């Protein structure tokens, strides 16, 4: 297939995945912010939402303070923020339009319909309207993803779309960990006491994993188990290990189909091997923050390797 087509497909799926992530982050943050002040701890939850879902430096050039109004505007609607939900959906749709022949009709209809509907939202929303808006965003991505799953041919086009989703997901989960790792460190149990419980469940909510957590661990919320779930648990759809399982599988399918392996296959396999042999205790022992920073760098390298090998 054309490199440009593969590139556009890859980015369509990165941007829809990102729109979903930003929506979940906003959803979880609104919920956290609605708790009485005493439950919130010292940090600014709005600022940390921006830090994990977008670019804090860019935010600070546009707004004086981080509060519900400014962060909502920045993350959901601001055209100057390349990762705002509006921009994500628009960029996804633009990419889709340029490769219409590579999309099924159902996928195109989902994205194009969303793009047309996006304009009908008045950005001046109260909390209830805003939460309905976030639900709508999540539904759009579900429908689009479902359309892809149900209607696409299982060939390289499909595999590149999976790569886009998985690279983006791994990045999103790692960014949450990067911003909030301090909440998961063992000492924070004593420092913040049970107040951190709500911060922890917010992390789970940002990856849609509150229920999953209980099914997997069958005990109350513990920070190191959250880290385990988000990093190493292969069953958890947004964990780093699961994302890499998907990346390795689809990169292998592509390599088999094209009859040639390259740097991206080697990089993805190496990372998956590392995740498989890790234990959460050792990650904490060597430093959670260092681990996460290292992972983000590796994941970016993989993105660059995929682009270099296939998309340029």
């Amino acid at each position, binding site marked *: 297939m054309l*490199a*440009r087509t593969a590139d556009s497909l890859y980015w369509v799926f990165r941007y829809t995945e990102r729109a979903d992530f930003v929506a979940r982050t906003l959803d979880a943050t609104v919920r956290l912010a609605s708790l009485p002040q005493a439950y919130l701890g010292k940090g600014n939850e709005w600022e940390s939402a921006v830090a994990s879902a977008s670019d804090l430096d860019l935010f600070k050039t546009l707004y004086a303070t981080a509060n519900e109004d400014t962060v909502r505007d920045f993350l959901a609607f601001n055209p100057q923020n390349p990762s705002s939900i509006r921009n994500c959906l628009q960029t996804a749709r633009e990419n889709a339009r340029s490769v219409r022949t590579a999309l099924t009709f159902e996928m195109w209809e989902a994205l194009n319909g969303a793009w047309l509907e996006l304009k009908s939202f008045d950005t001046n929303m109260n909390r209830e309207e805003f939460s309905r808006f976030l639900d709508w965003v999540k539904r759009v991505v579900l429908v689009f993803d479902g359309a892809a799953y149900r209607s696409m041919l299982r060939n390289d086009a499909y595999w590149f779309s999976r790569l886009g989703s998985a690279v983006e997901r791994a990045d999103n989960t790692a960014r949450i960990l990067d911003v909030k790792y301090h909440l998961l460190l063992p000492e924070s149990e004593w420092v913040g006491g049970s107040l951190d419980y709500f911060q922890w469940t917010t992390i789970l909510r940002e990856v849609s994993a509150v229920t999953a957590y209980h099914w997997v661990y069958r005990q109350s919320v513990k920070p190191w188990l959250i880290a385990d779930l988000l990093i190493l648990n292969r069953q958890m759809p947004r964990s780093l290990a699961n994302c890499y399982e998907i990346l390795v599988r689809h990169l292998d399918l592509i390599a088999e189909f094209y009859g040639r392996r390259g740097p991206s296959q080697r990089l993805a396999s190496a990372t998956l091997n590392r995740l498989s042999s890790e234990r959460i205790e050792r990650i904490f022992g060597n430093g959670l923050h260092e681990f996460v920073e290292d992972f983000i760098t590796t994941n970016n390298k993989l993105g660059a390797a995929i682009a270099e090998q296939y998309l340029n």
Partner: protein
Amino acid sequence: MLIDSFDEMNGRPGSAEVRPPYASLRKWLDDTSAETFDARRDQAEHFFRRVGITFAVYGDNESSERLIPFDVIPRVLMKSEWDFLERGLKQRVTALNAFLADIYGPQECLRAGIVPSDLIFQNPQYRLEMKDVAVPHNIYVHIAGVDVVRVGENDFYVLEDNARTPSGVSYMLENREVMMRLFPELFMSHRVAPVENYPDALLATLRSVAPIRQSRDAVVTLLTPGRYNSAYYEHSFLADKLGVELVEASDLFVKDDVVYMRTTQGPTQVDVIYRRIDDDFIDPLAFRPDSVLGVPGLINAYKAGNVTLANAIGTGISDDKAVYTYMPDIVRFFTGQEPLLQNVPTWRCREPDSLSYVLDNLGELVVKEVAGSGGYGMLVGPHATKAEIEDFARKIRHSPEGFIAQPTLSLSTCPTFAASGVAPRHVDLRPFVLSGSDEIRIVPGGLTRVALKEGSLVVNSSQGGGTKDTWVLDGGS
């Protein structure tokens, strides 16, 4: 004006007589309730929006969705009428290809005085770069969209030859698709020749003109200016139906006079490019240097015989409005036959006698700019105001060689839905003629365009025209 036109259903407008191809359609029009037609028209519009024919977005932030109006009453031709048209079209396109091979080659028709030399050499559509270039299989016009109008029971005129990058074939295909969905019973009672094999015929044509080389299958691509082009929908539609890559200039590159496309598996050599970009923009090294839509080096690869461009570079000279006037002689010279399809009688304003006739009779003539297209730069005398006529006369006097004039043709009319009910409206027909190295293919039918305004003769979609499904009835009704 309507009074003098041939009506395809009644022969003459208002006549009680019904011509045979329309006999059972007439009954259908009478038997179907207005409510049913309203509902079907809504469904048709809904279908076109869903399929996405509307996505002609001009500019980035806009969602302007232009829908070309579709009329549900088909335009019907008898097999015998079509057979005649088909023969005429094949003859005409054969002559066009021979003419192009000649003027870019030995130029015998110029020496024989069939066409004045200055008309060719001073014409911006004549591409000097193509002189003595051997194009693969000696075919220039692979896809022609010849505009034909009917003025009488047996009189068909060619209005324009459209030998560059004719568009509209997606409407021919989608119009049939929507008709078959909305009115399946009509297709039970009429044997309508299918058009759905057009993409197959096009692909076979394109493959047949690949440069001659080793055993592998020819790689065909469709080159589009991109998603901001008004015909982008058609480009993506055709690429999809053909099963070929829809490429933009940035997807192609030229190395050592060979064209490659960038794929996920590395560079892949391209053999045939069905290009929907005009000559001027196709290669910034050969033509307009400011074009960002083009592929640098493409023309060199083309001249080296390593890639086929469909249509060839320089075909614009053959559908030039001034050259058009010589087509009957061109057909005679190159085929040795009398032309089956007629030319509209035309006055060339470059000739002094014609010029004075034209200026004296502007009120009755249609005057066209030689370089114009799409119904622009045109004066329809009988419909023009005095001021418009005077204004146009000034333009003609200023550069007579830039204009031709024709009598106001009374294009045939077809029953069409109007606000007032079913009424006759003027139509034309654009069949698509495919010339390969093996044969000339034409799917029976084409795109019928209809001027929706009462009395209007301008069928162009940019000026309020609509479209109809076109039926060729196989073996009576």
